[in-house]
């Protein structure tokens, strides 16, 4: 690791939702950094706070329930939490591009894709309509949509899922952002199309030098694309490490549980798969202490006191709960 300034640094982020049951913390003191040109993966089960973390960064939390209570989001040296709404509009789509999970709902169904794409250029650059249109065709070509001059006049429903996701990527990349946040960009796609999209993203990242935050629940996707990984559980980061360390030397029981429960191609057929017992507790029932211990049905002081998040090896951080943290022999 160099002492180079990270592109994005999230420090002690706490995001809560105002509900009938009170203020519930969906993200509870999350910290991580994204370096320039690198890919950070955020992995965890549904409801662990991955997407809420991402939406807190770009301030697109559902309003009025979602609130960032504490913490800083330092992007290129300034705190995005303190930026005005107008400044944020410039950041989103300009310096930070976002790729959403559902390419059907992320695009406006009643506008031609050309109009939606050129909007990015019109909002963030001084291009004329004609130039923006030309630039949009270029973007479609870049994401390898065949016959972009024709496709640009299509409506989203005329495109397949993979094509729509490419349009979504084109929109996120249109203004050459420094950071792209991709929230489950390939979850809805077939493996073959997923492979195309991941390959495309890797290539574009190499060409344009941007950083990526990739949110997914698929450890295979993480292994193939990320440099560093953040494992989230119940609103907290339980482990953070370079990708090789996560897969070869996972230190937290939850990370190990996730890795083990996935059938791999070399798992003996029809063998009993390891599982993680229990379920994630609801937001309202989460304990202040170790939440994975809570899931495992353990009792006592571990549930009361929050475990420390410590750097065990260089760059390898883990919640050092006495039950869940284990250094492999």
């Amino acid at each position, binding site marked *: 690791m160099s002492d180079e300034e990270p592109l994005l640094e999230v420090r002690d982020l706490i995001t809560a939702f105002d509900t009938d049951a009170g203020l519930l913390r969906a993200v509870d003191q999350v910290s991580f950094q994204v370096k320039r040109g690198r890919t950070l993966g955020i992995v965890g*089960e549904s409801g662990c706070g991955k997407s809420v973390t991402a939406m807190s960064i770009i301030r697109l939390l559902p309003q009025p329930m979602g609130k960032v209570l504490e913490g800083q989001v330092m992007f290129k040296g300034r705190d995005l939490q303190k930026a005005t709404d107008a400044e944020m509009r410039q950041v989103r789509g300009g310096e930070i591009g976002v790729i959403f999970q559902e390419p059907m709902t992320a695009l406006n169904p009643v506008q031609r894709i050309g109009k939606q794409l050129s909007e990015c250029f019109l909002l963030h650059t001084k291009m004329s309509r004609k130039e923006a249109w030309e630039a949009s065709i270029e973007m479609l070509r870049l994401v390898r949509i065949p016959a972009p001059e024709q496709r640009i006049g299509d409506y989203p429903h005329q495109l397949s899922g993979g094509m729509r996701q490419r349009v979504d990527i084109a929109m996120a990349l249109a203004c050459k952002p420094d950071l792209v946040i991709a929230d489950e960009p390939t979850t809805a796609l077939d493996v073959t199309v*997923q492979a195309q999209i991941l390959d495309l993203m890797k290539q574009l990242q190499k060409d344009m030098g941007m950083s990526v935050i990739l949110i997914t629940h698929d450890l295979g996707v993480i292994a193939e694309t990320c440099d560093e990984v953040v494992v989230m559980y119940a609103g907290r980061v339980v482990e953070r490490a370079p990708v090789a360390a996560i897969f070869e030397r996972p230190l937290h029981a939850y990370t190990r549980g996730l890795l083990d429960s996935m059938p791999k191609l070399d798992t003996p*057929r029809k063998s009993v798969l390891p599982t993680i017992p229990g379920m994630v507790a609801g937001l309202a029932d989460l304990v202040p202490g170790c939440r994975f211990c809570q899931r495992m049905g353990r009792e006592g002081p571990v549930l009361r006191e929050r475990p420390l998040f410590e750097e065990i090896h260089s760059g390898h951080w883990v919640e050092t709960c006495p039950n869940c943290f284990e250094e492999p022999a």
Partner: protein
Amino acid sequence: MEPLLSVRDLKMHFPVRGGLLLKSIGAVRAVDGVSLDIAPGETVGLVGESGCGKSTLGKAIVRLSNPTSGSIAFNGRDITKLGRHAMRPLRSDLQMIFQDPVESLNARLSVRQIIEEPLVIHSRGNSAWRRQRVDELLERVGLPKSAAERYPFEFSGGQRQRIGIARAIALEPKLIICDEPVSALDVSVQSQVLNLLLELQQEMGLSYLFIAHDLAVVKHISDRVAVMYLGKIVELADADTIYQNPRHAYTRALLSAIPEPDPRLRKKRILLEGDVPSPINPPAGSAFGHRIGHPRYEETIGMDLGLAELEPGHWVAADPCCLTPEDWEKARNSRS
């Protein structure tokens, strides 16, 4: 051994209507000549990209739709042409588990009513017996008894899938069509449901047709695997064999697209360009050869691209575009 299910040359075409009078202007060849056997106690995995016809095949087998042509024999009896009434007694042997447990459970019924419904329809036991049976079933799939009086929305995705499984096994079926049963679940929950399906198979001697797009999951649960492309099976073999030694170019591409959860294995993928071609008026020759623009594509127009047995039990479409020259030679010889 006599197969439990035997599908022969099954076709399922849907008319495409257009023009002023909504005349039929073509057909979606969703399933286009599929033959498949499932033995008692066996799991056959069915994989392929979306739109390849795997779900349509599953639905046709349980006769939720009427096949265009071909035959389906279940337990030695031809069920292709049976009407709704004649099918009813067979439904207790043929069940289905769906991908989306939210949509496949009636939100207005309590869990007890949902699981009891098949028992009521097939007039099994009296109400006291059924009550006890529902409790047993819930326990069997790992849900508390108290779940019976609650409603589907109160459960998580994994629990809802357990409810769907309890309903499917209520009548002690012989074959269950599992249509993407774990695709919507998180990995930790997915492994729980897979374990449950494997246990139930052992206990009850169930056969499964397991439809999924996650190849690692399919390999784990299946004895044999069929790979489907544009309405046709292109390769069919023992699960280990198909993963270790795939012979068809499409199977190889599909396998190489799986992201392996091991960063050391970042591999050079065989990237497929484009999407699955449309099953409306598919290419005349080899569909996959057409997609990859194979130089021998023209030859395959009008050629019989049916399955050939390369090794005992290893079937592959006899298609010069998708096989190595040696395999193509072998396939041709084995068919003549």
